[in-house]
């Protein structure tokens, strides 16, 4: 009996610690109303919505086979897609979701390519004219990077908070 009591107390302490934290998290989150977007609309407005909470609905066209930790939902055609990363609350996406319409609440994130991360123009701007001399090879390399930067595209994905099958 004593041992059972000891076990119960131990379990109670562990679980109560976890519950306190989740209560705090709920209290901090602001209550906001977010419009439900289609994938097409989300992609169009992606630059403005980066790092903001969004709600998007679309058809699941692919679920990561090995872990289910991410899926892709499509809009009006297969070229208009967005990747969804399953957050803690979602856990994972099941393969059975393929072809289902789902509604995802999450934060839209922006991924910059290497070419974009490297901005030689900005670095050069930090120096006064003539102060920063570069050889021809470096100039050429910077031009190549600048060109690829223009061609590169920004990729967006959603850090999923909640998902709902429609």
């Amino acid at each position, binding site marked *: 009996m004593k041992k059972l009591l000891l076990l119960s107390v131990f379990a109670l302490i562990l679980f109560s610690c976890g519950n306190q934290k989740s209560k705090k998290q709920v209290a901090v989150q602001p209550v906001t109303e977010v419009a439900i977007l289609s994938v097409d609309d989300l992609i169009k407005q992606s630059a403005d919505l980066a790092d903001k909470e969004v709600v998007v609905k679309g058809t699941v066209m692919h679920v990561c086979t090995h*872990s289910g930790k991410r899926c892709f939902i499509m809009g009006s055609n297969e070229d208009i897609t967005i990747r969804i990363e399953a957050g803690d609350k979602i856990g994972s996406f099941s393969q059975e979701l393929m072809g289902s319409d789902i509604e995802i609440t999450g934060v839209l994130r922006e991924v910059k390519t290497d070419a974009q991360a490297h901005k030689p123009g900005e670095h050069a701007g930090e120096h006064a004219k003539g102060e920063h001399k570069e050889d021809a090879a470096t100039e050429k390399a910077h031009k190549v990077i600048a060109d690829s930067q223009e061609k590169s595209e920004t990729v967006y994905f959603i850090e999923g908070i909640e998902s709902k099958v429609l």
Partner: protein
Amino acid sequence: MKIRKLLRILHRDFGYFIVGMTIVYALSGIFLNHRYDFNPDYKIFVSEFQTDFRNKTNLTQPEVESVLQSLDQKVVYKKHYLTNRGIVKVFIESGEVLINPKTGEGVMRYLRKRPIIYGMNKLHTSSLGTVWKWGSDAMAVILLFVAVSGLFILKGKRGFNRWGWWLTAAGFAIPLVFALLFI
């Protein structure tokens, strides 16, 4: 109560308590280790078939459904679309079907969950949301306690000081060697 006696009692009772969870984690750990050798969650059945369609650019829903009905496997239609490569991709419950409307060739990929293993893998990867994450953390703490308390239960010739530390060191050495060699 002496410390060693208390440890023995706690080790025994927590040990009983944690058996189920240890089995889940150990078995699913083996399956997940081999996730690139085979799909640990689903059995995947791939079958090819031929339809009567020729030189078509797209298929209507009734046409797709008639194809699905003719297949050996009973499948439920969800929706379909035409891919950029001109292939009709059909979503079915538990899988997908690809049909080439020009040649009539088709492939079905049907998934079936591995009954118990699927559930164990989901538990192992903490894919069931926040509550389970904390629950499994608690179980991990208990397992840690059982492992460490086990070191101090026996005394004498077969106790940790004279016998146990060799085996404990060996247990640490194996992952350490791999870590040093490959990380």
